[in-house]
C-alpha cells in the first residue's frame, strides 16, 4: 500500500476519506457543491447533451441479481492525485500540484485543449461548452469567493479551495474539523471526512489507515488523496 506523501514545505496535505458504508446516495453533496461553487444549473437538456457539470457525482452500481440485488453508491470527485496524469499533459500549466497536495486548476491559463480531461481516469474534469447562465432570480446567490468560469475552459473539484484559503490565511495552522468543503458539510450521514493528512491525530488521518480503506483504480498508480472505506454487508 502506498503511503501518503509527507509534505515538508507546507503544514497541510489535504485529503478525504469517504465511508461507503454510510453513503446512502442521497446526492446532498452534489447539490451543496453546485451551490457553493457557482456551477450552472444542470437541467434536463444538459444531461441529454452529455454536458452536465458535476464536480462531485454519485456513481450507482447494481450488484447481484433480482431479488438479491443491491445498489452501491460511489461519490466520485477529483481525487487530487499526487501522481496526477492530468497535470503533465497540460501545455500551459493550467493545472499543477500545489504544496498542499491539491491539484489546482488555474482558469485564466486554460486554453481548452481538454487533454487533461482525457487523461483523467476518474472523469473528474469537466469542460464548459457554453457560457454559464443563471436565471435572473438566482444571479444574486452566486458565491462571491468563487470565480464564475467562462466557456471554453476546464474545471473540476477544488476541495473548496476558497474555504481552505479563508481558514489558513496568514499561514496559520487550523484545528481539525474547523472547516469542511461543502459536500462534507452537507452529508447527512457523515460519510465524508476531510482534513489535514500531515496531522497524525486528525480525523481523516485516523480513517486513512482503516483496514477497509482503498483507492479507486489503484493499479494506475495515480496515488490519489481520496480514499474510500469499503462497504461491508452485515450478513455476508
Amino acid at each position, binding site marked *: 500500500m502506498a503511503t501518503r506523501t509527507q509534505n515538508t514545505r507546507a503544514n497541510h496535505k489535504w485529503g478525504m476519506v469517504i465511508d461507503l458504508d454510510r453513503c446512502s446516495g442521497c446526492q446532498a453533496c452534489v447539490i451543496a457543491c453546485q451551490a457553493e461553487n457557482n456551477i450552472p444549473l444542470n437541467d434536463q437538456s444538459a444531461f441529454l447533451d452529455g454536458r452536465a457539470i458535476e464536480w462531485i457525482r454519485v456513481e450507482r452500481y447494481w450488484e447481484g441479481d433480482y431479488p438479491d440485488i443491491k445498489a452501491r453508491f460511489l461519490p466520485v470527485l477529483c481525487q487530487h492525485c499526487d501522481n496526477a496524469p492530468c497535470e*503533465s499533459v497540460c501545455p*500551459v500549466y493550467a493545472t499543477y500540484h500545489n504544496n498542499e497536495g491539491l491539484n489546482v486548476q488555474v482558469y485564466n*491559463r486554460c486554453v*481548452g485543449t*481538454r487533454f487533461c480531461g482525457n487523461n483523467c481516469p476518474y472523469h473528474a474534469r469537466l469542460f464548459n*461548452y*457554453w457560457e454559464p447562465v443563471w436565471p435572473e432570480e438566482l444571479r444574486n446567490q452566486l458565491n462571491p469567493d468563487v470565480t464564475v468560469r467562462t466557456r471554453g475552459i476546464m474545471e473540476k473539484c477544488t476541495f473548496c479551495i476558497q474555504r481552505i484559503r479563508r481558514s489558513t490565511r496568514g499561514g496559520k495552522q487550523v484545528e481539525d474539523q474547523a472547516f469542511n468543503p461543502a459536500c462534507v458539510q452537507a452529508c447527512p450521514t457523515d460519510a465524508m471526512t476531510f482534513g489535514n493528512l500531515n496531522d497524525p491525530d486528525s480525523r481523516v488521518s485516523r480513517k486513512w489507515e482503516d483496514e477497509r480503506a482503498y483507492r479507486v483504480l489503484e493499479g494506475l498508480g495515480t496515488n490519489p488523496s481520496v480514499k474510500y472505506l469499503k462497504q461491508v454487508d452485515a450478513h455476508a
Partner: protein
Amino acid sequence: MYYRRTLTDAQINRELLDVVLRTPMWWVIIVSILGLIVAGAASAFGFMMNQGLGVTGLQQPIFWGFFITNFIFWVGISHAGVMISAILRLSQAEWRRPMVRAAETMTVFALMTSLLQPLIHAGRPWRIFYWVFPYDWARGIWPDVRSPLVWDPTAIITYLTSSTLFVYTALIPDLAIIRDRSTGWRRTVYGILALGWHGNPRQWKLQGIAGILLSALILPVFVSVHSIVSWDFGVSLVPSWHVTVFAPYFVIGAVHSGVSAVVTLMILMRKLYKLENFIWEEHIDAVARLLIVVATAWLFFFWLDLVFALWLREEQEMTVWHLRLFEPPWSWLFLVFIVFSYIIPVPLWMFRRVRRSFTWMLWTSLMVNVGMFLERLIIIVPALMRKGPWTFTYDTYRPSAVEVTLIVGSIALVVLLLMLFSKFFPLIPIWEEKEGQKLIDDVRVGDRVIPALVKEH
C-alpha cells in the same frame, strides 16, 4: 510495355508552364467553388467561436472528436511529401520526378491545414499563443515541456519550415524559367524569388547539395512529427491509447494515407492539367508497388496493436475493443475502415492492370483515405466513450453540422491552395524532368532494347 517518351526541352517548358502563363476558364470556376466552400467553413468557425464549443457534438467524456481526427488526418497526408521526395531522392528512384513537387506542396498545405485544427478545436483559441510561443512575460511561466501538446507545435512548425524550404529550393530553377518568360511586375516578383538564378555549374551544385542535405535532415523530422502526434495518445492513460506501438503505427499509417493522396492528386492533375506526357502508367505503377509494401507493414503494426492491447485482458481495454469491433455504429465503421484501407485496395494492386489503370487507382487511393480517416476516428472516440469503469456513460458521439462543414472546408482549403499554387508555379518540376530526360539511355541486351539509367555515383 515500357517505352520512353522523348520530349524536347521546349516541349517540356510549354506543356508544364501552360497554366502558369495563361488562365483557363475551368481553373477560375473550380477556384471559385472551392473558395465558396472555404468561406462557408470560415463562417461556421465564426459561428462556433461566437456560440461556444457547444455547437459541436462533443460531450463530457468525449472531449476530442472530429477536429482532432482531422488534425491527425492532415498531418498524415503531409507525410507523403517527404516519403516521395526525400526518401526517393536519397534512394535515387527515377520515377519520383513528376510527383515530387506536387507531393511536397501538398505536404506544406496539409500541414498548414492540420495546424488550424487544434486551434479550431481549443476552447479559447484566442489564447492559444500562450501555448505555442514560449514567452513568459504575459503569464510569468513558460509552457510545460512535459506536455505532448508542446512537442506537437514544435515538431509541426519545424516540419513546416523545412518542407517549405525544401519546396522552395527545388523551385528556384523553375522560377528562373518563369522569370525569363514573363513581363512587367510579374517578372520582378519572379526575379526576386529566383534569387538571381542563372543555372551556372556552381549554382546547380549548391542546389543539388541543398536538396540532398535537406532530404537527409528532414527525415528525422518526418518520423518525429507523427510519432509526437501519436504520443498525444500514447503517453496518456486512456485504455487502448496507452500502447507502445503507436508511434511507428501512426507514422506508417500516415505514409499509407499520404502516398495514396499523392496518387489521387497525380491522377487528377494529369486529367486537369493535361500532363499525359509526364505522368505515365509506369509512375502510378511504381507508387502502387510502394503502397503495397507500406500498407502491408501498416497492417502488421495494426495487428500488433490489436494483439498486444488484448494481451493482459485488462477490463477497460477489452471494453473499448468490444465497442470498436462489435457495437454499432462503431462495428460498421470499423468494417468500412479495414475493408477500405486494406482488404479491397491491396489485393487489387497486386494486378498489373489495376496498377496501370488511372481510373482504378483513383478510386482505390480515395478509398484508402476514407478508410484512414475512419481509422483515426475509431482510435479516438470509442476509447474516450469507454475510458473508465463508470456508470454515467452518456450518449455516443455524433458530429454536428458545424464540425462536418469544417472538415469539408479543410479538404476544400487544401485543394484550393494547391490550385492557387499551380497558377503561379509549375506543379511538375521542369528541371527534374529535363534532368530525367538526360539520364535515360538504352541498352541493347540480346535482341531487346531495354531502357536504362545513367548511374553516376
